[in-house]
């Protein structure tokens, strides 16, 4: 009996190891493929020309493969969405976990999570058909599909991510901290600002960074509402062309293993490095400010 149990244990151990290896192996292969297809572009242009070049004319003869405007577009769009989504997401999380009554929290939480379930193409369509014309009329600007619109739509997409992860982090702050703070005579506001939020800070930072990495990698929304102009934006109402939009729009017609094709994969590498950096930072923060035991504060 004991032998059989031991065997089952072992079999399950190997099974799970195998499954984990397969999924990691697939990821490694995808990464390998990404680099294999992207790096050949540097036979045609130097790294400097590629990253700092101001002109993206991939189908011209001779072609220009400068992705600086695309990188700037991606960063600005993400930054703008962060400016909107971080306060909204974090404050919603604080409200849901600390202030709202149980009934209201039970009502609001699913709604926020529903927002996360909205397909990105629906948000993109909303931005294109409703928000674009609205921005034109309200601000008297010539183009409704622009950086601001894209940032706004991306904020809608990252709020649920930020909110639900931050809420989990706040929820897991030990109750004894709350009680201790209140017992010392702190008001509820003081408890939230000086005790709960600092205690859940690592979780909140992780939430913010995961939300931002969702925004920078999001494709459909920026393809539909960013306007698609490969230029350095002069204002937040200028159209831009973030990296994922460029890849999505052009990949279908780029000649297989041609320069344009390799350039698009190289953009993929840049995008990959950005999200990798975001994730490393998130990991670092989670490690550094880890709440280790209730006595640590």
């Amino acid at each position, binding site marked *: 009996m004991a032998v059989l149990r031991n065997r089952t244990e072992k079999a399950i151990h190997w099974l799970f190891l195998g499954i984990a290896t397969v999924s990691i192996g697939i990821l490694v292969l995808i990464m390998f493929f990404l680099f294999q297809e992207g790096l050949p572009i540097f036979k045609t242009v130097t790294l400097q020309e590629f990253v700092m070049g101001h002109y*993206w004319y991939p189908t*011209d003869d001779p072609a220009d493969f400068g992705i600086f405007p695309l990188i700037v577009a991606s960063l600005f769009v993400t930054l703008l969405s962060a400016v909107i989504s971080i306060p909204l997401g974090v404050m919603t999380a604080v409200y849901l976990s600390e202030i709202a009554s149980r009934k209201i929290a039970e009502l609001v939480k699913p709604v926020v999570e529903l927002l996360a379930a909205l397909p990105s193409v629906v948000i993109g369509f909303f931005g294109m058909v409703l928000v674009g014309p609205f921005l034109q009329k309200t601000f008297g600007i010539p183009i*409704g599909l622009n950086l601001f619109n894209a940032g706004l739509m991306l904020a809608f997409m990252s709020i649920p991510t930020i909110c639900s992860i931050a809420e989990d982090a706040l929820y897991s702050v030990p109750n004894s901290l709350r009680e201790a703070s209140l017992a010392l005579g702190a008001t509820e506001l003081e408890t939230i600002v000086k005790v709960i939020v600092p205690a859940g800070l690592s979780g909140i930072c992780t939430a913010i960074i995961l939300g931002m990495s969702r925004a920078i990698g999001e494709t459909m929304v920026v393809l539909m509402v960013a*306007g698609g102009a490969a230029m350095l934006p002069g204002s937040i109402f200028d159209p831009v062309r973030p990296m994922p939009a460029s890849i999505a*729009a052009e990949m279908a*017609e780029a000649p297989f293993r041609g320069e344009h094709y390799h350039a698009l994969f190289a953009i993929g590498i840049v995008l990959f490095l950005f999200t990798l950096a975001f994730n490393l930072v998130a990991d670092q923060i989670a490690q550094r400010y880890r709440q280790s035991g209730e006595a640590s504060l």
Partner: protein
Amino acid sequence: MLRKAGLFFAALAFLCMGSGAAFAERLSINGSTTVLPAAQKLAEAFMKVRPDVAVSVAGGGSGNGIRAIVDGTSHVGNSSRFIRSSEVKMAVERNTYPVPFRIALDCIVPVVHPDNPVTNLTLDQLRDMYTGKIRNWKEVGGKDMRVVVVSRDSSSGTFETWGDLVMNKQRVVPSALTVPSNGGLVQAVTTTPGAIGYIALGYVNQDVKMVSVDGVMGSEENTISGRYPISRPLFMFTRGWPEGVTLDFINFVFSRKGQEAVRASGSIPVY
């Protein structure tokens, strides 16, 4: 349990056979979104004549269409431009020979917002707008309003034809909005008062206003007569000389019924 699974697979196999009997032959068409409406109408009309054939139509761009017939994933590849020499080379390397058929004519028309008073632009004015030299509608006799240049993605066949026939190999200004489809372009122009864009004649609807070029309005007559400057032929490519169902389909395309379907889709018949 096993028996149930067996029954399930038997049923599945039966279903497959059933559908196999209904459609003895398959024909897949892929390629340019400009040719797509014509290809869809042609496929519908063809399936009425030949109910034994299942035709599937997809639009992924001219390059994809040609690549699909070279790879053998489609029987017919639609293209709004002629085959490039690099593509011929690729095909020859894979021992195939793409055969072109000129199935229709198309004309690309500049469109503006319906409230824009401008009715005619010269080719030079169009080029200057797209290179960013003309920035205000005032300069071409319109209202004092910024010109918003709307262009297609650099990989689209429409963009390429526009580049050849209008831009004279000059570059479209980087600040141009780019949209991935004809429909998206109509959407962008409809919602932007200062916009100028270009689309295939078949996609023009009441939401946008056509502008004549050098005094000639884009129309079927003017395209066939050759007076309209921005027009081009549309192609279907087959993998080698067509045979079997593919041959029947190509023959149908050039029949009276086929060319009627072309006209119904908004493109211009070849005869």
